[in-house]
Structures are given as C-alpha cells and as structure tokens.
C-alpha cells in the first residue's frame, strides 16, 4: 500500500496551462496514491473520464488544479473508487460508455447502461442494495414522476413513514452526448453542449467556449466577456427565485410559489427580449457571444433587477413570518460537512454545509476576477440552509449585474477563430447548481476529438440519498427540490 499523495506537492514546481490546469502523465502507483489523497482530504476529485487509451482525473486543491492521465493497460486501470467512493458512479458510467475496466471497483453494477442499447441488450435485473430489518417496506417511484419533472427512479426503503434508505437509479435520459460530440466541429459542439442540461445552457455554453478558447489560444472581446457574465447571472437568478418558490410549494405555501413563478417569468421575458431567446440558448459561442445588449436592453435588465430585489425582500419577509413553513424546512434533509467535503459537492448544496467553494471565487475567470462579491455559506446543511444560501446569492448576483452593466463599453462581441490547431483545454464554470467542468481535446482539422462534461449533480445526487435518510417520506419532495439536481446533465 502506497501512502496518499497530495496534489499540492505534485504540482508545486509545475506551470499550469492557459486554462489554469497543470497536465501530467502518471503511472499506476501515483494514480492510486492520488486517489488515496482524495479520500484523505488532501485534495478534491473534480472529474474522472476516459479519453482513448487514457483515464483522466481532474483534481483540485490548495488553489491549484491538475488533470492527471494514466495509460490504461488492456483497457483496465486501478479503480479510484476503491479508495474514494465518490468516484463510483463516474467509473461505472465510463465503463458503460467506453468499456474501460476499473480494477477493484466496489460496485460493479451497470449505471448508464440499462441493457436497452442496440447491440448491448441485457435482460438482467438491476439489483438494488438490500435493506434488512423488521417492518421495512419498499416504495418504488419513477422513472415517470407525478409532476413535470425529468425521469429517474427512486427506491425508498421505509419503516412506516421513516426512510431508512433511498437509492437512486439514473441514466434514463442518456442521449449519447459524448458520442455525438466526438468528431463534431466546434459550432455543432457548442449547440450540443448547450443542450446537455437546458436549465444551465448558459453555463454549459460558457464552459465549452472557455475550454475551446484555451485550447486554441482564442482571444475574446472584453464586451463579450461582460455579456457572458450578465447572461450567466440572469440564468442563476431565474433558477434561484423559482426554486425557492418550488420548495415553498412542496410545503403547500402556494402564494410564495405563485409570486416566484411570476418573477421567474419576468426574468425569462426580459432575457428573451434582450438576447432573442428566453433561456439564452446558443447565445454564448467560442470567440464571444451571438447577441448584443442594446441600450434599451440595459434599461430592461435594470428594471428587472429592481423588481427582483423587491420580490426577494418580500419573499424573505413572508418566509420568515411563517413558522409552519420553516417547520418543514428547518432540520429537514441534513447533509453533514464531512460528506460535503468528501464528495466535493459544489453549489448551494456544498455551501449550505459549510464548503466555501464557488468557481467564480476559488478559480476566478474573467470577469469575476475583477468583480467583488461575497461567498455566502451556512453550516446547518438542511433544506432551510440551502434555501437561504440561494436567497443570499440572489443579492450578490443582483449587485454583480449592476456593476457588469456599468462596465459595458462599446465594442466587438465576437472574434474570428484563430487557425485551427491541435490542443486541449478545460474550464470550470459556476452554474446555478454548482461548479461545472468541461474538457475538450481538438484534433487535426479543428474537429472535437473528445469532450467531457461533468455536471455539479454528479457529486450532489449521492448526497441526496444521505440527506433523506431518517426523514419522513413526505419530506422527500422538499429535500429533492432543495437540491434540484439535473437528470439530463448527469445522464449525458
């Protein structure tokens, strides 16, 4: 058994690429030692993916980032999750998609492969983990849920009303995104990546654009950088406000929900009027943005910010005045700081349990490197804490948007592509639900050889299972909504 290796020691003397990532090839021993380093809390696992005959692992720690690569031996490599359980689903997914075998994988069940793909048909039953004890019963929910929600299966084991185990089974909306991206040109790649999770289309498009720009040394006009952040903050605001409403709706406070839904609609309508698309899909492309903000548009966004602030303050007053609502949210669905650290859970899920990580702050990318804002955290880790972190983030986003609008100076919004070259780039972008990682490798001829996207949900879904344990079945919708993980972003 080797000793755990720390990322900080490994990259201390090495220079990072233009995207901020140190890239290095490692041997199996060091690979395993780094996996043990994740488990020991020396650094965080940020992504894990297969790329041709290599396995790659993105690691984050002590203000440094690295992508380490290990050559597989006959399609096999030493499992990371054998030491660090948060990698289990990532390794199962990569094995299902690319056939790479993690040696020592603790949970060998399929993940994205449901035995339905042509040529891979398999009638074997998916075995859920056993729960044994007196008086236990199972509740199977999904993949088609009661509301207008994405599909996934939840298997609850309960004793009376109390959940003793929740197990998720995902992968239903697997669309073969990475397969489609292999060999695509950059323009098509941007359209596909912008549809990996529609609710984060701006964040995905931005992460992809930054990764491609880093790979090719593509400079982006200053105005485009500001417009990207304006779109990203508008996207964040629309989800934060509507999810606060949706959580209250699950606690039967429909007035807050209606008010938040109205405010969200206001935001989408303004985005549609300003950028030509309500969700701002395809507005960010490598090299810049496709839609400019007119002076009339700036006025519209400022008007929206004023209305949003009014709504936020009012919602908070009403939320604070309803003990019966807080009775449902406070101490419900607790995630411990230990789990959040282990899983390196991003976004409000991590920040509500004390993990002060935000890609905009921890690894600032333009324009956030010159934009002051407060990183809001809580420690309770319950539904209330996740809701309150989002309420506080609304304030920060509103402030940022005002300053971004102030700084908008006339100029180009898109630059022409440089000569296409072989290259690699990666980017970490803070989507509304957490840090989103995209890595691209560009081949001769400017085609995308390999694109990997890791949604924040990969490290949040498993924590939902932990959050629900010991809660009553009726509180599951509240817990689930307070996470609002992406199915599509996870299923790829």
């Amino acid at each position, binding site marked *: 058994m080797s000793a755990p290796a720390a990322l900080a020691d490994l990259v201390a003397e090495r220079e990072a690429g233009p995207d901020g990532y140190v890239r290095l090839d490692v041997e199996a021993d060091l690979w395993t030692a780094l996996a043990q380093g994740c488990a020991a809390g020396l650094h965080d696992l940020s992504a894990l993916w297969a790329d041709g005959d290599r396995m790659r692992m993105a690691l984050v720690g002590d203000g440094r980032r690295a992508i380490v690569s290990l050559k597989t031996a006959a399609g096999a490599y030493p499992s990371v999750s054998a030491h660090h359980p948060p990698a289990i689903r990532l390794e199962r997914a990569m094995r299902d998609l690319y056939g790479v075998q993690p040696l020592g994988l603790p949970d060998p069940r399929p993940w994205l492969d449901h035995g339905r793909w042509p040529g891979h048909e398999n009638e074997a039953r998916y075995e859920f983990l056993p729960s044994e004890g007196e008086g236990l019963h199972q509740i199977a929910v999904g993949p088609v849920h009661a*509301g*207008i929600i994405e599909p996934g299966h939840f298997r609850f084991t309960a004793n009376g009303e109390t959940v003793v185990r929740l197990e998720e089974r995902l992968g239903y909306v697997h669309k073969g995104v990475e397969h*489609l991206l292999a060999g695509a040109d950059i323009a*098509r790649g941007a359209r596909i990546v912008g549809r990996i999770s*529609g609710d984060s289309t701006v964040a995905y498009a931005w992460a992809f654009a930054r990764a491609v720009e880093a790979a090719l040394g593509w400079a982006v006009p200053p105005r485009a950088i500001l417009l990207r952040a304006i779109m990203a903050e508008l996207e964040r605001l629309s989800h934060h406000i509507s999810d606060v409403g949706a959580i209250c709706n699950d606690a039967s406070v429909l007035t807050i929900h209606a*008010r938040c839904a109205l405010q969200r609609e206001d935001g989408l309508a303004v985005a549609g009027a300003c950028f030509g698309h309500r969700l701002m899909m395809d507005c960010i492309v490598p090299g810049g943005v496709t839609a400019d903000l007119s002076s009339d548009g700036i006025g519209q966004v400022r008007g929206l910010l004023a209305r949003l602030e009014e709504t936020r303050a009012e919602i908070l007053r009403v939320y604070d005045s309803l003990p019966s609502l807080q009775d449902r949210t406070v101490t419900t669905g607790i995630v411990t700081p230990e789990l959040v650290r282990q899983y390196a859970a991003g976004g409000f899920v991590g920040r509500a349990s004390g993990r002060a990580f935000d890609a905009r702050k921890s690894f600032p990318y333009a324009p956030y490197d010159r934009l002051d804002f407060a990183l809001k955290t809580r420690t309770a880790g319950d539904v209330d804490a996740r809701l309150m972190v989002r309420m506080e983030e609304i304030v920060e986003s509103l402030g940022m948007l005002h300053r971004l609008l102030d700084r908008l100076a006339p100029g180009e919004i898109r630059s022409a592509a440089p000569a296409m070259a072989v290259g690699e780039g990666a980017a970490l972008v803070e989507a509304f639900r957490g840090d989103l990682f995209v890595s691209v490798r560009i081949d001769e001829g400017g085609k995308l050889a390999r694109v990997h996207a890791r949604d924040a949900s990969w490290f949040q879904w498993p924590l939902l299972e932990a959050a629900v344990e010991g809660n009553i079945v009726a509180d599951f919708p509240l817990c689930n909504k307070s996470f609002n993980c992406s199915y599509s972003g996870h299923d790829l």
Partner: protein
Amino acid sequence: MRSFLFDALFKGTATIARPVPGSAALEEVAKTLGERARQRLGRSLSIREIDAGSCNGCELEIHALNNPVYDVERFGLKFVASPRHADVLLVTGPVTWNMREALLRTYNAAPEPKWVVALGDCAGNCGVFAGSPAVVGPLADVLPVDLHIPGCPPPPLEIVKGLLALMEAGKS
C-alpha cells in the same frame, strides 16, 4: 402575506389575454384528428407530461404554462399526475432507448381516447441528438403523434396556442 394582496390590488393582473390558437397547429390537428376527436374534445383536456429524453429545457417552458401569466387552467388545460387521468400525453425529448419502455407503459396506462403531442424539436426530429446510438428516434417512431409543437424549446405562448388548437379541432 398581506403585502401580496396589496400588490395584487395595485399592480393589477399579470395574466395575459387568451391567445388565438396557432394556425399551423390548427391545420395539423384537423388533418391528424379528423372525425376521431369531434365528439370527444372541446371542453377540457387533462395532460400528462412525459420527458422521454429531454435536456429539460422544454420542461422549463411547460412549467411556465402554470404560472400566473399564462395560467392555462383557465382554458381547461390541466396537468395531471397519473396517465390514468390523462386525455393528452405531452412528450418531450428525443426518445432514448433507456426511456422507451417507460414511455410505452405510460401511453398504455392512459385510457382511450387519447392524443399525443410531440413538444419541441427533439420530439419532432431528435434535434441536435439525431444520429445518437442511445436514441430510438423521434416520437413518431414510437407513438402515433397528433400534433407537433416545434421550438427549442417552444416559448410558452406557442405551447398554449398549440394546445388550444387541439381543443378547437374538437369543437368544429
């Protein structure tokens, strides 16, 4: 809470006027439904939404239908939890192999007569996901489709116009 009421009084209603049913949608449903729907449709529709592989963009805009601006329940359009209660299956996404069986089971669980609406470009032609080995194909390859509402995603107003056309077809 009182402030919500004051707001409603002073700011007036946010709800928009009933839009005219979409003309393209009217034409399409007149063709696909024919006589089949005449006696059945026209008063109200219960809708069961199914995500068969969507990126969740369409779901965001379907959600908007229930907000106070569009408020589609006033037209008799109601989203229901169970396919057993549904007249209409509103399906989004390219149909993935992993969702195909759940989609068919949900369709089979809905009582006759029933109508299928393909929502969004993906349900119509798989959108950017066309050609993926993980995708069965557009919805029409799996279920009989009565109406297609295009868009990526279609804005809520277009969805309302399409659904109103479905109701109109039954009245004429």
